[in-house]
Structures are given as structure tokens and as C-alpha cells.
């Protein structure tokens, strides 16, 4: 079963290694991982998407919580959180197809951020399933290069991972 875990950590070298090591030791493949700064100075937030047995995942979460640099862990799902992913897609944008591509991109909530040599870069920040669909629909138009950041997520309402709130 897929789980999305947020981890609030001290922004120090080696924290990624400590966290990733715990998942690795239990044989979990981290499907996606994103890290970035937060509104709290000196603290970063990891979002980890991982697939595995629930009891074992719970054990990993407890082990992660034991790390000194980890201040909070929390679990997200569709009910309690907004889950988003960001993708960049470089695609053939020749005259013949550009109207169709543009139409698709707009329909799925993305936008063109660069055009150069008949090639466009598209960005989209959406739910995973919608990004999946956009990829599917763009496939026939020759995707040259793409990347996805993996999920990030935030609780709905007042709930926060920040222990001060």
C-alpha cells in the first residue's frame, strides 16, 4: 500500500542519508522524495512516497522519528491533505501540432514556459493522476525529455506539521 509521509527535519548535512538508510534497511524502495525549506528557519521538510506493508511502514516511521534531527513525522492521504506533484515536459512544438498540444496542456492545467527551436517546455503542478493523464495524452506528440518531482503534500485546514502551531 502506498503511503505519503512528511518529515520535518533540522536542515543539517547527512539527514537525508540517515532517513533513506532506514527505508533501505527494511527493503523499501522510495518511490518519490522531495526536500525543501519551510517557513521555519533551519528546518526542511521531506515528503516521501513509499509502497509497502503497513505494519512495517509504521515501524519505519517510528524508527525515523527516533532520529535526533527529525522533529515530526506525519502521514498524508487524499482525505486529510492536498497532494500535488510538479512535472516539466519538453515536447515537440512544431507548427503542425502546436495548437493540439497547447489545447491539451491548458485542459490539464499546465502551461508552456519556454519555446525554442520548435520545442516547448511545459510545466504542470497537479494531482498525480492528472499528470499521468497529461503524459498519456502527450505521448503521440514526441516527448523529448521529462521529469517529475514526486508528491508534496499539506494537511487541509489548521493542522500543521510545525510543532509550534
Amino acid at each position, binding site marked *: 500500500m502506498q503511503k505519503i509521509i512528511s518529515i520535518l527535519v533540522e536542515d543539517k548535512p547527512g539527514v537525508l*542519508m540517515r532517513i533513506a538508510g532506514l527505508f533501505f534497511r527494511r527493503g523499501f524502495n522510495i518511490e518519490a522524495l522531495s526536500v525543501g525549506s519551510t517557513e521555519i528557519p533551519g528546518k526542511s521538510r521531506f515528503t516521501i512516497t513509499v509502497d509497502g506493508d503497513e505494519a512495517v511502514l509504521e515501524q519505519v516511521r517510528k524508527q525515523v522519528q527516533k532520529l535526533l534531527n527529525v522533529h515530526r513525522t506525519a502521514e498524508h492521504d487524499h482525505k486529510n491533505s492536498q497532494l500535488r506533484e510538479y512535472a516539466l515536459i519538453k515536447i515537440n512544438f512544431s507548427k503542425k501540432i502546436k495548437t493540439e498540444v497547447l489545447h491539451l496542456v491548458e485542459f490539464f492545467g499546465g502551461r508552456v514556459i519556454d519555446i525554442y527551436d520548435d520545442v516547448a517546455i511545459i510545466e504542470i503542478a497537479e494531482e498525480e493522476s492528472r499528470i499521468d493523464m497529461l503524459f498519456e495524452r502527450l505521448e503521440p506528440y514526441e516527448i523529448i525529455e521529462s521529469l517529475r518531482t514526486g508528491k508534496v503534500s499539506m494537511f487541509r485546514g489548521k493542522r500543521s506539521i510545525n510543532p509550534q502551531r
Partner: protein
Amino acid sequence: MKGADILLKGLLDQGVRVLFGYPGAATLPIYDRMDDYPIRHILVRHEQAAAHMADGYARASGEVGVCLATSGPGATNLVTGIATAYLDSSPIVAITGQVERRFIGTDAFQEVDIVGITIPITKHNQHILTAAEITPALKTAFLLAKSGRPGPVLLDIPKDVMLEEAEYDPDVDVTLEGYNPIIAGHGGQIKKAATLLASAKNPVIVAGGGVIRSGATDQLIELAELLGAPVMTTLMGKSAVPQSFKYHLGMIGMHGAKVAVDTLKSADVIFAVGARFGDRAVLSYEKFTDLAKFIQIDIDPAEIEKTVKVDIPIVGDAKNVLTELIKRLKEDGSVTERKKKKPVRNLETYDSDNGMSIPAIVEILSEMGGDFIVATDVGRHQIWAAKYYNSPGLDRGGFITSGGLGTMGFGFPASMGAKMARPEKKVVLITGDGSFMMNIQELATSSHYNIPVVVIIMNDHHLGMIRQVQDIFYDGKYMECEFPPNVEFVDVARGMGLDGVKVTDIKDVRGAIEKGLESDSTFVIDCIIESQENIPYQSYDN
């Protein structure tokens, strides 16, 4: 003040009076300043032994043991000792030298990423980048090592940081935002546990190493008496309750006492205190889980339900939780009215055939009934010692063994560390010829500093446990488990300035041990074992 002075002064302020270490180029700035501080340095002959000594010191005293090694190979030689302490929750602080900051990451001479290497086997570790960081890092290390679930902490300090000038501020505040061990148990959970225990027909208590760490022996005894419940221990919990306690049934697990395992099978509630349900203790998770309802107290939330589904988990310090639980049971009153079962007391004893066998020798040591610390190495002798060593003098924490990692070579240096921590106590090591050989060089250290240990070698010229496993599970095909009788251990001891005796007749064992106990220096008793008796396996099958 130089970084090296800040470190030494900081260690002194943490109450450290002895360091177990081995110098190298990267730690020379520390050694250069050492004679200005009242800290005794024990120069080991191998860094692995320094870590085990610090561990033995910690287990025997409850204080933090400290070891010191140079960068690169010195640091990696500590790894086995650190992992041993980690698996058995022993509080040690390991300090390693690192190459100068400007060389870090260049594969410089004797450079190794010891912080990376020890991430999975330390409670925490830190690479220190400035002299100003030393004091807060050291305070954090000691706080972490001994609080909550104890464990090893490693600090890695580059050589030039040891020479860098900084202020020494002993009052520097270390607040650890993400670290709040839960000491008191949850009231609601304790209430549930009390209700379940009061209604149980056959409750049993399983005591683990956490009972020793938290000093909860008195509370455990009180609870057992209140419930009329038998107490059994894990290997790590062997000296959690006095051996003479009327409800004590011995050890559970793969090689445990039959009576303990049988009693577990008939229990309706299994109450684990400071025990983590390790695989050697529970035999089979599937069958174990079917036995009864489970209550588990552990200070580490990650140990709760790690392996076994627990009906009532309680996170907290064993002593605190048991105190609250007893209070509640007494207030409730229902348990005191319950008809208590008579304590079953048939602790295992060995049916001696008068031959030179490991259990027979362990029984002789038990009969001598001394108030000493007993340490073991790893192998058949360890299990026989855990099963049959049954001295009334065995006090809490008086049995020191490598349970989780099963480290051969642990016993002798750990014994020396224990002796340093508790000089008033006699320390007896039960070891095997294979295990003893793994850190035999420490005879020189023992001789150098006169740290007396009675070493009883159960010399069967075999890796006895490996032989047993090959006997039972590999159709008796013995591969590479036999040592030729080419080592005269007493001669080795003599070659390092010590004495000993070789014993080939069971009649001479007691006299040899007495001689060892009277000796002012380490005394090696080389017991030539005749039998290759297998240790019985326990199972939950009827």
C-alpha cells in the same frame, strides 16, 4: 583553549575518569594534552577491545563508557564494539579522530567516513567541524547515550579542530527539540494493563534488559508477588531478578529453560517488561503470537509491536510504569483476593556425569556462590552459563553478555571494563577457545594495568555452537569448526606476564577457580572439555 583541552575538560565535567583508547596521528593533539587532566587512559592492544571495554564499563556501572580511536582503521576497528553496544542498548561514547578539514573528501591517508559507516549502529553521531561545537556535541552525546533507551553515540573530530582555539563554556545550553523520551507511562494504558492482569488466570512476566537499565528489579519482584506470577527472563534480562527469587523460572527462548517455555505456553497473559521480543527469545513469531494476550512496556516506541502484535502497549520507563501499575492494582484490590498459584521452582540443574563438560563447570562456579560479576563470550559456553549459572550472589546487572549482536571476542575486554567500573567486585569470564582467541591480545593490557579477571576457557578445540548447528541442521557434516590443539593458553598468558592453569579433570576445577579468585592479576583457567554435548532446543510444539 585548544579543541583538545575543550574535549578533555568536557569529558571530565561529564564525570569521565577513564578512557579506553589507542593513539594515532589524528588523535595525538588529544594525547598531547592528556596528562594535564585527571583522566586515566587505558592503552588497549586493539581498538575493538576499547569499545568492548567501554561497553563492559557501562554495563557494570550504569555510567557512560568512553573509547577513543584514531581516524581510518582505528575508527573502523571500533565498529564491532559500537554495534554490540547498539544492539544491547549500552551507553557508550566513541570519539574518533578525523583527518584535517582541508583533506576531508580527498581519500587522504587514514581518512574514512566513520559517521556514514556508523549511522545504522549509533543512537546518534556527529562530525564536528569547529572547536566551538565540541562542548555542545559532547553534552548532547552524553545526554543521548544514557537517557531514554541508552545506546552508543559517536563524535568524529578532525585533527585541526583539536588544535583550533575556542572558548570553553561548560554551561552552554543543549536543547534537543526532536528528542523527548517518554518516561512516564500513559495512565489509560496502565489502567487497561491492570485490568487485564487482575483478570488473568495464568499471567507470566518476561523481564528483559530494560529492567536492569531502569533499575526496576524491586518493582518487578513486588508485581510478581502481587500477581503470583512466574517471572522468566530473556538472555539480556538474566540478572534482572535475583536467581533466588521464588517465582523465577529461568530463561525463555531457543535455548531457554523447558519449565519457562512450558509456562509461557500455558499463560493467558504475557507481560513483557523491557524486552523487545527478539527472534532468539520468541522462537517462532507465528506460534508465539498465538500463545496469549500481550502487554509490553518499552521506553522505545519503535520496539512496541516491532515483531509481535501487542494488545496493550505502554511506552515508558519500566520502573515508573511498574510503580504506577502496582499502585493501581493495590487500589483496585481484586488481584489481592485472587487465589495465587504456588511458585514453581524447578530451576534447571545439570545432571553431572563428573566429566569435563561446560555445564558441569558452570554448576561448580554456581555452587561456589560468589558475589561476583560474570561475563561471557558467545557460543555454547554463553548459553550454558545463561542456563545454569545460578548463584545467589548474582546481583542486578551482574551478568554481562553480548546478546543482540552475539559478538565473539566481547567477553574478555568487557570483563576488564566491568572490573574497572566495579573494582570491589571479582569478575569471572566464561569464554570459549574460539571467542577468547578473538581478543586474546588484551591479556597484555590486563597485565600492563593489572586489571584482574578470572578467565575460564571452555576449551573444546571447536567452534562449539557451529559444531552443534552443523550436527543438527547439516547432517553432522562438520566443516571448518575444529581447531587443532596447537594453542597453550596458559603459556600465552605467561608470555604476557600473567599466570594460569590447565585443567583436564573435573575434580580440579573448583581449586583452579579458587586460585583464580585469590589471584591479584588475571588468571587463565584452560579447561579441556571432553564432551560435545548439544544444548537442547525449545519449541512451542506440544
